[in-house]
């Protein structure tokens, strides 16, 4: 298949792996930011091809994983109410809050629907004017433009039975939080290609300079990731710390400007709590005041939820690259996809889910 097969080519992958081995003279720790990249690495076994002194740690780029537990509880609360159609992306449905997950709400009779785009939710609102249609707006800068478009259209068309539970988050503040942490061991980043497709990569340039860390904008296929690792190691070995673009077939330095403009029209930058990590300043998107009529928290009067996390889940440390999934005592025993203690075990971008699904229980310690 075009645009896929050539980036999953075994020979090319092998060439890059050898090239990485050739230029690596000492141990390095690199973080791939996006959970989609983590899954490619674990599913295709990219880490197995790399020299053993290169450690890949898995970053915070899993929107499902970082959505705060309070918000899941709010989602469960709203979805359980009569007269509500609650719309969500598929992989939010199994994520546990403190009051269960959305699939259980569905099993109890709640009208919970999987949508592929926030605009599908908006269409449901038009189709069922007697219902309240709520969209669970999670995700990074990648999904924010689509959410913004739904709000914009709802506003233009005066659709009053549509609202959103918003938990959009931003990548650069999270990367800075990792770099500023005293526990940080990340020496180079593979930045999330799809986020950069929307936002470009000028935001990363001050980070690379301030923390003297190479940042390579990287795609999601095996050859993309190996090339990204190669570019990052090359910078590290040469003592450079620049922003480079491996994913040039999709990403331009300035990004997608109309999408950014739409995001700025609808959203303002707000502090946001990240599940397992805590509040990060200026790290989220909230609705601008003039669009807050679409805020589900206000519409349903459920602002100010607080909830306690299971203390056993190490998700926060794993998201920051401090721990690996199998270093958690609950991994694969008390925490499984059937009985998750945290979101990372059930998200299709969660690192714990990747290791649970693709790796043999005994093979972890080898890396």
């Amino acid at each position: 298949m075009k645009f896929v097969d050539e980036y999953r080519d075994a020979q090319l992958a092998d060439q890059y792996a050898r090239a990485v081995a050739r230029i690596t003279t000492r141990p390095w720790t690199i973080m791939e930011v996006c959970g989609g990249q983590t899954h490619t690495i674990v599913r295709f076994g990219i880490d197995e091809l790399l020299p053993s002194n290169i450690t890949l740690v898995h970053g915070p780029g899993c929107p499902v994983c970082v959505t705060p537990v309070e918000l899941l509880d709010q989602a469960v609360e709203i979805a359980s109410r009569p007269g509500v159609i609650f719309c969500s992306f598929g992989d939010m449905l199994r994520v546990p809050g403190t009051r269960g997950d959305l699939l259980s709400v569905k099993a109890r009779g709640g009208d919970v629907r999987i949508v592929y785009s926030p605009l599908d939710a908006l269409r449901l609102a038009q189709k069922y004017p007697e219902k309240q249609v709520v969209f669970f707006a999670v995700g990074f800068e990648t999904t924010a433009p689509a959410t913004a478009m739904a709000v914009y259209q709802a506003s233009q068309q005066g659709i009053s039975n549509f609202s959103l539970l918003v938990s959009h988050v931003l990548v650069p503040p999270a990367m800075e939080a990792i770099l500023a942490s005293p526990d940080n061991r990340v020496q180079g980043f593979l930045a999330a290609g799809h986020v950069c497709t929307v936002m470009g990569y000028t935001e990363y340039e001050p980070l690379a300079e301030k923390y003297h860390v190479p940042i390579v904008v990287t795609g999601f296929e095996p050859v993309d990731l190996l090339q990204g690792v190669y570019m990052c190691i090359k910078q590290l070995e040469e003592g450079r710390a620049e922003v480079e673009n491996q994913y040039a077939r999709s990403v331009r330095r300035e990004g997608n400007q109309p999408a950014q403009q739409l995001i700025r029209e609808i959203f303002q930058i707000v502090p946001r709590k990240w599940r397992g990590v805590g509040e990060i300043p200026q790290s989220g998107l909230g609705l601008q005041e003039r669009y807050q009529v679409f805020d589900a928290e206000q519409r349903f009067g459920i602002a100010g939820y607080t909830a306690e996390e299971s203390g056993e889940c190490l998700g926060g440390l794993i998201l920051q690259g401090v721990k690996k999934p199998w270093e958690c005592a609950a991994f694969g025993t008390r925490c499984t996809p059937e009985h998750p203690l945290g979101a990372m075990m059930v998200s299709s971008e969660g690192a714990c889910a990747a290791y649970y699904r693709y790796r043999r229980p005994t093979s972890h310690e080898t890396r």
Partner: protein
Amino acid sequence: MKPADGFTLSCPIPIAEYPTVLLAHGGGGKLTRALIEHMFLPLFRNPQLEQLHDGAVLELAGTKLAFTTDSYVVHPLIFPGGDIGQLAVNGTVNDLAMCGARPLSLSASFIIEEGLPMETLWHIVQSMQHAAAAAGVAIVTGDTKVVDRGKGDGLFINTAGVGIVAPHVSIAPGNVRPGDVVLLSGDIGRHGIAIMAVREGLAFESVIESDCAPLAGLVAALLDAGIALHCLRDLTRGGLASALVEIAETAQVHIAVDERIIPVTDDVQGACEILGLDPLYVANEGRFVAFVAPADAGRALEIMQTHPPGAGAARIGSVAEDPAGLVTMTSKIGASRIVSLLSGEQLPRIC
């Protein structure tokens, strides 16, 4: 998954952690398995059921009779490449074929929701008749129920089937041996993606058609040629991955397959990439895997490739002794990973 050793009558519900049944309990993954192993199997236990095969083989007056049943709840009732009626005949015919049986007779029970257009029912019944004729089976008994509007999803069909297994034939997961070759009858994932595309209103450049097809003729050809078939499994819910994992666990063998050889068409691959699904877990209705003695593998593959539902057949892997109960796969770039059961159905991802 532990056997239900701890199950006693003082335990009111053996699956206590789920107070209600979830859709995932019917998804063909781990939760379905848990329901069978902790609830159905302990109470209904008998040697035939313990095989956990697609059907049971009963010895009746010196004849080996294969017996199976399946319910069809697909929505929409009519989809690209088939409909619920064709599925209801072929699915049960295929389950019989997977026991090594020659299908003979089917039953058909209709649970119809009030308000179903008569024209739709007529289309589906005609389609069942065509499928039955093509598979050489007779629908010999049946039942009709109509439920109130809103109490069904248009139409549910249950079919049961019986077939005759030749005396020397023994096909079951427990017969899989180290050294066996794994043959796959064709490209995977078409049925699941065809249904999802219609159900979710996803428009792709080309219409993806279900692979729904009867497999009994192909299996009969393999048996007639004297191929040493150790196990057959059709790849329905849960797809290729779930079938392989179930067989590896039941037979306590290691199955190793190669992702680079598993056929997936470009349109199915493209749809899976967009939706974030793995074609290994997507449902099929006209595909199976065969575990064959190594000496017969080449001949078996030739036979499969000369029959229409097996035209795209490929040799995708082999069976070893250790590590028992595990399926591993060589990835597209040559590294190795395990293949495991999912909890329930795959859910489309965020981005």
